[in-house]
């Protein structure tokens, strides 16, 4: 059977060419191809990892942002409340102060009024006394111009005394 008989020449050439091809392919084809594939695989897996990390970071950041926002909100609330309290306090304080001041002023005014009144009354009293004395003097002067009249007056005064 020619078909199953190995031929020397063919084996010879096949060995030589195959060895050369394996060598050349290894150096110029498989080497670059396999290393590029490996490089790409690692770069893809790196990129995937990086993306995953970035995603986590973004999630973290969102949480952080949320937290900061919440904090800010809380702070704002606190500030507002404090401001309101301060405002109330200030208003109350002012009101109290105004009250006190008002009271003080009113008291002062009242005192002044009383003083003035007293002064006026005293003055009026003095005026009245003076006027009375003057009137009385004039009247007495007039009435005591004759004896009769003096007698009548004394009589009258005595009558009053008796009645009392």
């Amino acid at each position: 059977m020619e078909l199953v008989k190995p031929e020397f020449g063919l084996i010879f050439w096949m060995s030589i060419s195959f060895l050369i091809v394996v060598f050349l392919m290894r150096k110029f084809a498989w080497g670059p191809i396999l290393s590029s594939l490996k490089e790409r695989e690692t770069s893809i897996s790196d990129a995937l990892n990086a993306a995953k990390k970035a995603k986590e970071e973004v999630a973290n950041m969102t949480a952080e942002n949320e937290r900061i926002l919440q904090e800010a909100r809380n702070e704002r609330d606190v500030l507002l409340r404090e401001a309101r309290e301060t405002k109330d306090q200030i208003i109350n304080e002012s009101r109290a102060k105004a009250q006190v001041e008002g009271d003080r002023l009113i008291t002062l005014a009242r005192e002044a009024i009383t003083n003035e009144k007293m002064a006026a009354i005293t003055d009026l009293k003095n005026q009245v006394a003076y006027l009375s004395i003057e009137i009385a003097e004039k009247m007495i002067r007039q009435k005591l111009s004759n004896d009769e009249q003096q007698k009548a007056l004394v009589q009258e005064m005595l009558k009053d005394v008796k009645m009392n």
Partner: protein
Amino acid sequence: MLKYKRLALLSILTFAMFTLIYSINVAQDSSHNQLPQNEAVSSDGQHHDDVVSATDHAESGAGHAEEKLNAGKIIMEHVADAHGWHLWGHTEIPLPIILYSSDRGMALFSSSRFEHGHKTYNGYMLQGQKVVAVNEMGEMDAHHATVNEEITANIFDISITKNVASIFICCGLMLLIFTNIASAYTRKRKGLAPTGLQNAMEPIIMFVRDDLIKPSIGHKYEKYVPYLLTVFFFIWIANLMGLIPVFPFGANLTGSISVALTLAVFTFVIVTVNANKNYWEHVFMMPGVPKGVLVLLTPIEILGVFLRPFVLMIRLFANITAGHIIALAFFSLIFIFGQNGMGVGLAVSPLTLVFTVFMTVLELLVAFLQAYVFTMLSAVYIGAAIEEHHH
């Protein structure tokens, strides 16, 4: 969807065309082998005086050499190696004949000198496709020459035969394709998404590396990847080349036992050189087996060491050759029937065409499958040889 349908149609048409060329080749071969003289032969306009021998002329001139069509012979000639590359009719590309004999030294000349085995040259002549030494040193009619058996036994025939030329073409094609792809990776399209040929080959390279080599060998696989990838693509490309019936393809390269043998021997050498202590221990002294059984087991294991590459060789050779033989046999049916008249042959041809297309498509699958199997088994054998056992 439409695109794929069109592609499918195109591929079917391509195969039909190829098989048609096959049929024409076989037809012209049958005329070449002096078979029924029909119109196909007389219309063959490729006769050149320098390539057509006198006997051919005599017989075709006589026109009554009604020899029986020998389909087996035609098929075997197609499957076997040759010293010239047959193109069509009587036209063939002569290939260099390189001989070394301890008695006569080196000899290098064109195979056209033999004139299809009808002439002797420089003390040699063709017997079938085998170069033999003759006693007469001058150029003369081969039919009158006497064979010198003594010198013939000592000839080293390293001629560039059809298969050798095919090996060169296959290797050249591989280098061309893969250095091109490699440059796409490293220079032309570095860092870019793969396109074209690079894109087509990348999944196959990845498949061989990740699904064939890695699981079979284990974590120390990287050292063997270049060899196994080369084996895979060599066998695959050679198989596909064998399916294309027109020059410069069509040689039954992987279906040649010598090529299959060489590949198997390479795997055997790699396995043997890289085998560790554990492997040899399992061959010679299977651990955990009683001494008495070892007497029986060790010879079997030693036989197995050689049997594995042998099976690799036989599987590749037999599968590819068988595929070629079946495809050609279906075609020969046309001419076997054609002997009963041209009409019968024509009537049978559509059926055989369908069969042959079917076989060719099947061979397309086998071409991949055999490359896959050879690579995988090589990887498995290497894996078994370097496997570490942690007891």
